[in-house]
């Protein structure tokens, strides 16, 4: 059964006074356990698509089912819980919370799940160790390099054992060495933990870490490419 199912998704928004049709009828279904890349030139609607997949944005038209639930019918609390339990996010700008240290940042999603004290700390620590940051637990954002910040963000995304990780240009702000590191972590999460990963990127080499690439153009799926290299 498909984990995600998009059916004829449209998204319009106003940019100033100009109406932008960001998505013009996207239909796709993504199986549990896959590693998907979305590519396309800027303005092709790939970030909009990712936001809709992550329930951060709502489609103007069309239906979206995730884990057998119709997203349109969920209220704010249910959507928040869905994001909390099923989806981990990784952003291009890392988006760590500046007042908190690495460990506290990773604990955040667990707090919203109501996990208490010691168990929460242990889980968060384990996640940070898994991304190779066992010695950086109490560092703050300003004391970490870009690659390290992104690894903290990834630890924060998978600490709660989500079904799905959504990554928006995860290596966009990193050098090639750090990018490689991030991609190997993603592959690992996908293969070992069976977490579905969907990433948006415009770098071919990064996209090819996935097993399947959706190419977007002008708000529509242009073509689908299977990656053979694996």
């Amino acid at each position, binding site marked *: 059964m498909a984990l995600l199912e998009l059916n004829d998704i449209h998204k319009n928004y106003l940019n100033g006074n100009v109406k932008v049709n960001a998505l013009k009828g996207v239909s796709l279904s993504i199986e549990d356990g896959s590693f998907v890349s979305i590519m396309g030139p800027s303005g092709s609607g790939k970030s909009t698509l990712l936001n809709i997949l992550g329930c951060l944005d709502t489609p103007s038209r069309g239906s979206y089912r995730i884990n057998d639930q119709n997203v349109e019918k969920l209220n704010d*609390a249910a959507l928040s819980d869905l994001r909390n339990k099923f989806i981990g996010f990784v952003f291009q700008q890392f988006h760590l*919370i500046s007042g908190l240290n690495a460990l506290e940042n990773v604990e955040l999603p667990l707090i919203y799940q*109501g996990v208490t004290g010691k168990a929460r700390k242990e889980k968060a620590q384990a996640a940070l160790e898994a991304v190779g940051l066992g010695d950086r637990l109490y560092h703050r954002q300003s004391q970490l390099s870009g690659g390290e910040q992104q690894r903290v963000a990834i630890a924060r995304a998978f600490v709660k054992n989500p079904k799905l990780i959504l990554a928006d240009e995860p290596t966009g702000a990193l050098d090639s060495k750090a990018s490689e590191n991030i991609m190997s972590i993603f592959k690992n999460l996908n293969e070992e933990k069976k977490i579905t990963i969907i990433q948006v990127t415009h770098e071919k080499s990064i996209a090819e870490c996935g097993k399947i690439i959706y190419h977007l153009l002008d708000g529509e799926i242009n073509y689908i490419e299977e990656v053979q290299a694996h």
Partner: protein
Amino acid sequence: MFKQSLIKAFLVRFCFTAKMAANGILSNVLRSALTVLGVAIGVASVVGLMGIGEGARLNVMEQFESLGTNVIAIKAHDENYEFQPDKAGELVQRVESLEMATPVVSTDTTMRWRRTTGEVYVLGVNHQFPEIRDHELIAGDFFTQLHVEQRSAVAVLGYSLAINLAGGRSPVGQIISLNGQSYRILGVLEEKGAGNANDIDNKVVIPYTTAQRIEEKRTVEEIWAKTASSKDAELATVQLGRIFQREIGSAPNVPLPSDGNETVEVEGPDMVMVEKPVPEPDKADIPTISRDPITVTNLNQLVDEIDQANRIMTLLLGGIATVALLVGGLGIMNIMLVAVSERTSEIGVRRALGARQTDLMTQFLLEALYVSLIGVICGIVLGIWGLNIFENYGFQTAVSFDAIKIAVVVALGSGLLFGVYPAISASSVPPVEALRRQ
């Protein structure tokens, strides 16, 4: 079990939200401190101004109470209505709750003491005066009933007057000249304080019979009566009021249809109780006088009225200060709106990680509440400290719990009220929108 874990989950969430709110305040200490200062100044001005108002009220109250709240003053404002001196004793007979009464003659006259001459206020009363007005003597004795009956030329001096004249030595036994006649000084009254108790400290007290001679009249313009308690005084005031209302109806220069009734009334000692058989004088027959010719005043009423006025004054001060407090609240709103727009991207991340709208709303409301709470505490301390300083300059002040209550309610209320809009705007930012902004 399930329910318990739900509560636990809620607590974890709430504690974290509370912590994030505290982080918010600490993230810009200077800005938060200024906002707190705004609230604190508002609270301090409410506590301070109301404390000063309350102090002034208590001060006035004390002055009035020094006059005696169980004293009733019956005063004729018109020569035609002045009393025979016997009236004092008669009223004590007729009104049960009156314990004693004295006729009062006030006048001013020239005084000579050795080589000093000057004007002095003279109070003519009977021998019961010290008891009626709670006066003690610090030297000598008060005059007796015999002195009063014999129209003796004797005098008792008020405290300040005695000090001014005799300069610390006892003037008892010395001679003072009033209106050209020599009086022997019998005693000196205890100090009551400047302005208190009809300014008795600066007066000469003599028998009313003697004072009548200075005034060259047979009547007295005032009667002071005393009851056992201030409650009795209120009752007696009503009874006296009724008696004089009837008597005014039959005053010598006012024609009245039923003269017979009047005399019966005055004569009968138990008349007060027998009210029904006596026909009330027809309203139309009572001459309309712009001011009552006789007023019966109990200080209680006066004190109540003045107290009421002072309370309103205090509240007014509090009201003005509350405006300052509201301005403090606006400061909170301003700072919260800045905080929300500064942290939009953080809000977006938290939303993506699973924070609900209610979490964010709680966080920003708590943040506003923290600021106003710290402001309230600082403000109360500041206000009380200010009152202490004020007190050191010799003013009477009082920390009013009403003021503290008002300040706390208004400050926390305005903190919440002005926190609501920023909190709602924080929680209603769409997550994508929040993430897009850096």
